[in-house]
């Protein structure tokens, strides 16, 4: 597999895992509701709710997969190549939320999404590696 193709596949996986992780974890925490830290027993109760929530665990699993992809990309690609592409999360999360939960996207956010998309595409078109690995 060519370096560029490998990089694109992992970048795509990383963006998808990151967005799914954020959305799933966010949903899981919303299902639990506001966490009160008024007393140790309330904190304990909240913790119990968190570790028994399948949605939260799914979110954590997604984020773990995201972090592994992130690390793997760093094993060859430039930091300045990988880092800006993480902004794609700002594009995918709102779109995912719109598709899954029908939450509207404001005009400002649409503008941001388009600009981020252009920027990340431009970075993605550059050579992933510009220096020899240490």
């Amino acid at each position, binding site marked *: 597999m060519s370096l560029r193709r490998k990089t694109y596949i992992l970048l795509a996986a990383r963006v998808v895992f990151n967005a799914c992780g954020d959305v799933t974890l966010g949903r899981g925490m919303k299902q639990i509701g506001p966490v009160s830290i008024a007393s140790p027993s309330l904190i304990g109760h909240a913790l119990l709710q968190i570790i028994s929530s399948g949605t939260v665990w799914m979110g954590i699993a997604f984020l773990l997969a995201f972090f592994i992809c992130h690390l793997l990309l760093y094993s060859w690609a430039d930091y300045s190549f990988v880092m800006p592409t993480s902004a794609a999360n700002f594009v995918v999360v709102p779109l995912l939320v719109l598709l899954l939960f029908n939450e509207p996207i404001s005009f*400002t956010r649409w503008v*941001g999404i388009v*600009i981020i998309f252009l*920027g*990340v595409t431009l970075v993605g078109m550059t050579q992933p590696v510009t220096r020899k690995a240490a």
Partner: protein
Amino acid sequence: MLTASAGDILVSLAMKQVGEVTHFSPRALLRAGSRVARIPLFWIGLSLLTFSFYSFLALLSWAPVSFVVPATALGYVVGTLSARFILHEKLGAARLIGVLLACAGVAAVSADQIGWQLTPHMLMMILRWFVMVVACVPFMYYLTCVHAARRFFALHRRIGPVSRDFTPPVSILKPVRGFDREAYENYSSFCRLDYPEYEIVFVAHDESDTAIPVIRKVMADFPDCNIRLLIGAEDLGTNNKVNKMIRLVREARHDLFALSDSDVRVDPDYLRYVVEPFRDPRVGAVTCLFRGMHDGSLASQLDCLGAAVEFCGGALISNEFEGTQFAHGATMATTKQTLEKIGGFEPLVDHHADDFEFGNRIYALGLRVELARKPVWMVYGPETLGQYLRHELRWDIGLRHIRPGGHFGLLFTQGLPFAVLGAAIAPSYPISAAYLFAYFFLRFLDAWTVGVWGLRDPVVRRKFWLLPVRDFFAFPIWLASFFTNRIQWRGVEFTIREGRMTPVVRPVADRG
């Protein structure tokens, strides 16, 4: 924000120590995981990332959201600067613009999160000012040309007359093909050189080449000049000029040689100026700037203006800021030893831009490519406007394949369309007029400094007012060059891929 960037950089460095992960089986991933777990940098980086996450949460609890969220956007700038100055990564214009766009986009999303709403009217205002600022970039380019030309020519004029005590023998090599306009004057100008020892070697395409009678007449008229005429060259690749160059170098008697296209004409002190930089052993090649001679047709006048103002202006900018990294067919001078180090001309037999590649490969050896202090003349033949446009398109397509970044950057040298755009969207008539005035003033200043004052080009002096016509055609040609890889060269059609030419119809290309 700082700890997040630092943590991410340390994690990235740790992963670079692990090396490129090529297999993604669970076992390979576990092996890579256990290796990274043994690297202290990874744990420090991870701790910093964790710390930054919790400090972000803590900050949210006491600082206003309007302060915290836009800071996310700034993280991209910090990260990019760290990549450049700590990790020494080459950012390049495309990546830099990409990061800035991502940063602007994140800022817009952050603005939405804190309740700042952008209206379509505000967006149009932002876009208008953005375009108006970008429209000034070509003006900056013209001023940079003026600066580079002033530095180059002022420095070289301060040095004074060319030295007469460094005169190694030189072989002047001329690949020719067909009859060029004023060929006799062009060829014979090389016989009138004020230089102690040199030879001229011509190579013609075949016995029927119409250049041969002219060369024979020059040989008869200059019996004291050491001239040889060779016929034909081994067909090693699609670029026939390079095939001839390979034979010429083999036949050259002297170590130092100067190749030039058949339509080049020189002054008697030409060789002294070309040889001068070789006094410095760090110089690997010498090339020349050039000015044009036209036949009176509009197309050849536009060609002359483009050569002197546009090509030489760009060449002077790269010479000033990064050092010349290419050569031009107007003159490609080097020694046989240096040529051997880049593998001779043989690797270039299928290349479209052989002159660019020649200079670029010598530069890659760590040697300098110098611009001779004095330009040569290029004698442009009669051409129609259609031929001129096709040849400009060929040049742009060639550039896109050898220097895609430089080709894209040509956008920001297009002063006329940007000035018209700036004028069209300006909020008032005086500002519109200012854009148009700035274009004409700076473009003519650029032409005067590079062409008239620097190159002492009589065509630019008399015809500088035609420059906007040249600029008018340059933009659509640049746009068109993105959509085709096919070029026409002396009646033969080629496809260019990564700088190499493949004939579409006939097997052999002819040039020079």
